[in-house]
């Protein structure tokens, strides 16, 4: 039996203000194996972004723990990479320099960095834009840079925080299909994907498993396995059957 890649163990998060406790997340518990594509879905304000930040190590839980490959998670773990909702690109760095950022942090030499960055800039369809600055790019292109930057460190786990919510529907759909392709390709990272979204449709389209959170405090309502074959068709009754079921669990 394979040890799980990621273990979220009874993670609880509270904020304290004026002596009062505001519980944001309550006893979240789930696991991820190496080939999983999991979406965490829930209404706005249910704490799902906070949960993702705790999982990648940017914030500590109030209680409980997150284990990656058996050890407590650290923010700079090179096997875990994050794609941000706001893109988080450095405006004074070119596309290439942004994509190379994680590699540079790992002390990889410039020649090796360029080669690897180039590979992923091509993989996300930004060939030709290597020397462009983020201000010259559209939203969809910026997120592609964010994606390339995350993939360039060749992580086992890719974490995404509502990555497509700032994009128009067409661009978002293109990127969803690209993520699926990259994930399905055994020669390319990532091996596992954990994505947070408020779109139930997006979750059903992408994920093997959907974790449903409800709000204030965020707690797990259900963990569902979506057994639809890919590519998934939104117009099929099974598809919107799943959407209805998840929707009814949240409401």
């Amino acid at each position, binding site marked *: 039996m394979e040890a799980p890649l990621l273990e979220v163990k009874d993670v609880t998060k509270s904020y304290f203000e004026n002596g009062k406790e505001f519980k944001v997340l309550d006893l979240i518990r789930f696991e991820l194996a190496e080939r999983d594509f999991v979406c965490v879905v829930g209404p706005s304000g249910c704490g799902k972004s906070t949960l993702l*930040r705790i999982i990648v190590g940017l914030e500590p839980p109030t209680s409980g723990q997150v284990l990656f490959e058996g050890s407590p998670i650290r923010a700079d773990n090179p096997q875990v990479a994050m794609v*941000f909702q706001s893109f988080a690109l*450095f405006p*004074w760095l070119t596309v290439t320099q942004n994509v190379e950022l*994680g590699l540079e942090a790992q002390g990889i030499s410039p020649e090796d960095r360029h080669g690897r960055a180039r590979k992923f800039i091509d993989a996300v369809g930004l060939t030709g834009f290597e020397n462009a600055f983020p201000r010259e790019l559209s939203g969809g292109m910026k997120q592609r840079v964010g994606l390339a930057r995350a993939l360039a460190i060749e992580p086992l786990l890719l974490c995404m925080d509502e990555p497509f919510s700032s994009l128009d529907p067409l661009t978002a759909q293109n990127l969803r299909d690209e993520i699926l392709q990259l994930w399905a390709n055994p020669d390319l990272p990532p091996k596992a994907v954990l994505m947070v979204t408020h779109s139930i449709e997006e979750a059903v389209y992408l994920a093997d498993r959907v974790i449903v959170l409800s709000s204030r405090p965020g707690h797990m309502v259900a963990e569902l396995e979506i057994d639809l074959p890919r590519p998934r068709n939104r117009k099929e009754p099974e598809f919107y059957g799943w959407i209805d079921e998840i929707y009814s669990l949240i409401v």
Partner: protein
Amino acid sequence: MQWYLLFNLIAGVRGIPEDLEEAARSFGLRGRAYWRRVLLPAMVPSLLTGSITAWGAGWNALIVSEYIPFLSPPPHVSGLGYLLDIATFRKPLPDNEMILLTILTMIVIVLAMNKLLWRPLYKRAAVKYRVEV
């Protein structure tokens, strides 16, 4: 002068958006690479406004310092302030030409600095180093 610079720099560092900080942290960027790719570029706009403010204040202080009597007899420093002082007060009659000349020189210097140094630097900083929130 250095205080204007310092306070602006502190404000600049504080102004680094949270998501950029988190991105840097999550990719493990630290030490020299962090300074080079995050901290220093983020400080460029504040460095510039701090420099402009500091330069302006220094310029004022310099001219005034040439004017205010310090020791008796005052040490001799040749500068615009000194010339203006002499032209206005020391001679029996105010030397209007010299007053005009020194003031014009000050204006020309300030305008030239603005146009040739501060404006181009500011434009570049506003484009390359501005962080969109």
